[in-house]
């Protein structure tokens, strides 16, 4: 059975007349890596600040380890927080920064030294104890910030876009490391980011936020594979999103009309959307395949012919825009071994599996 570490019950936050967080309910299971993902300004930091206790919710309840946190100040919540700009104490050495939490708890000297070296070890920063923050690179400061937050062994660690100040290479390396640290310590991580790749790479669960509400919540693969709204489909990964309408078709499938009825595709019937409510259709670029590709026709698929409009070589993959029957443009992602076959103007046969045509209500 999973225990719930942090729970938000209908939490809202209002600044003046603006409702920044609107009736959010969440249950974050213990020991999981949970990401809060959303575009800039959607209320991620505000949500984190309410969990940390820096902001009080306008309404609703926040529970940490089962206890209502109303009136509990941040210093008594026993959670860790990693800031976007790290917020290291500039007048303290690395060791003093990392030991700060334990020192505030009044732990004996040896215990602090112990905790400091353990925390520095888990972020691979041994030997830097006596440096000052300004003598460290951005990536090293980042590690110190993580070490400082985990040293007092909080059960929950909140991270607010901790990697956004690092360059791409370091960011990718740190993703792996953060995930390892989280698994080693068995700590609950709540990770705020607007980078969907980051969230996909690390999380056990993703909470997609949009305009102060939760747009979708689930495992990364579920959110990627079956986005519930066009916003989620667009935000997570790349996709073709087209206005569509649907009606029941043969074999319990749905007939989907795109582009004002000029193109018709067949979609496998999902349980969650009634045909009358369908407004959009989402097709991932990797699901738009060349018909000749191995396995493309293994499952029931729509067959289309199209003209290649533009090809962009991304190394392992090529991205191609195809103009298909009915005047619709679809973006497609194809293994670049087929590059010689594709150039602007050539005709191609395409296959899109019925199950890859996803129907959305909004």
């Amino acid at each position: 059975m999973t225990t719930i570490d942090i729970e938000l019950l209908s939490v809202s936050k209002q600044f003046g007349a603006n409702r920044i967080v609107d009736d959010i309910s969440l249950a974050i299971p213990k020991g999981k890596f949970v990401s809060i993902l959303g575009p800039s300004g959607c209320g991620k930091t505000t949500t984190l600040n309410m969990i940390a206790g820096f902001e009080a919710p306008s309404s609703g309840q926040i529970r940490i380890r089962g206890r209502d946190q109303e009136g509990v100040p941040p210093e008594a919540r026993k959670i860790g927080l990693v800031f976007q700009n790290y917020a290291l104490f500039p007048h303290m050495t690395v060791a003093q920064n990392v030991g700060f939490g334990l020192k505030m708890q009044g732990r004996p000297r040896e215990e602090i030294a112990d905790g400091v070296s353990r925390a520095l070890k888990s972020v691979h920063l041994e030997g830097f104890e006596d440096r000052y923050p300004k003598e460290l690179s951005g990536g090293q400061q980042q590690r110190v910030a993580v070490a400082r937050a985990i040293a007092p062994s909080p059960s929950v660690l909140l991270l607010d876009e901790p990697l956004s100040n690092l360059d791409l290479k370091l960011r990718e390396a740190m993703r792996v490391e953060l995930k390892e640290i989280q698994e080693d310590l068995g700590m609950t991580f709540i990770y705020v980011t607007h980078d969907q790749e980051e969230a996909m790479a690390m999380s056990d669960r993703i909470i997609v936020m949009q305009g102060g509400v939760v747009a979708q919540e689930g495992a990364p693969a579920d959110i990627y594979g079956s986005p519930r709204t066009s916003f989620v489909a667009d935000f997570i990964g790349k996709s073709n999103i087209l206005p569509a309408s649907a009606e029941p078709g043969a074999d319990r499938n749905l007939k989907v009309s795109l582009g004002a009825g000029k193109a018709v595709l067949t979609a496998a019937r999902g349980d969650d959307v009634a045909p009358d409510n369908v407004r959009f259709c989402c097709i991932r670029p990797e699901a738009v395949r060349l018909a000749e590709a191995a396995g493309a026709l293994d499952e029931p698929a729509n067959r289309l012919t199209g003209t290649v409009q533009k090809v962009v070589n991304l190394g392992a993959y090529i991205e191609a825009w195809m103009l298909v029957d009915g005047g619709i443009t679809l973006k497609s992602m194809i293994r670049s071994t087929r590059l010689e076959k594709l150039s602007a103007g050539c005709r191609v046969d395409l296959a899109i599996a019925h199950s890859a045509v996803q129907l959305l209500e909004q």
Partner: protein
Amino acid sequence: MNRLLTYLFRTALAAILAFITLPLVVVVAASFSPTSAVTFLPSEWTLQWYAALWDSRWLDPFLLSVELAVIVSLASGLLGVLGAYSVAYAKCPGHTAIMALLLSPMSVPQIVKGVAVVLFLSSIGLYDLLGTPGLVMAHIILTLPYVVRMAATAMFGFDKRLDRAARILGASVTQRIRYVLLPLIRSGLFSGMTFAFIISFNNIPLSVFLVRPGQTTLPITVINHLEYSLDPVLAAVNVASLLFILGAIILFEKIGGFSAQFHGGSK
């Protein structure tokens, strides 16, 4: 062209430094002169005027001035931190008005302040407070704005995310002030306290209303002496106070490190 500018700049700098220090050189030279007339470059050198300083006539005022400057700089430092904290950091209600009030003594002439303190003390019947207690009070009023100003500037520059970071790590408000805020504003605070120390130690216009016979500060004693004679003992007094203040600045600097390259900047 650039070289010409550099040259001009250096000359100007040298001229300014000379303008500031030459009068001091005259005073220093005069303090070693055996004749009672103040002369530049005396033909003989003597330490007799310095020996004359070792007398309760000069030592008592000196000790009073030191006592005053120490009490005033400590008290202004403490009050200044509290004031700056509530005004610049915690932004208590009406903080701009309170800040203006805290800084207002700066815009009142010292003579006026001196008269005001005397009138105030006598009108509430505390005439006995003239002398050391009155001096302490008046000097605190005089120096507090400088300390508040410096401490407030340091606090405005303080990154409040550091306070949040300390908070989430479990630090109570007193722990946050002690371990995070104070160390980071220390240099600003100590430069304010150094100002307070020097201003108090050198003050004449305010002290002149508040001293009593037997409780006279060093600058006032110098002024009194000047009324009767202009002899090299005054030069010796000035050189000695100059050295004392230099020593005090070095001491404050050692403790506060206000000009030291600071181990800082999280960015």
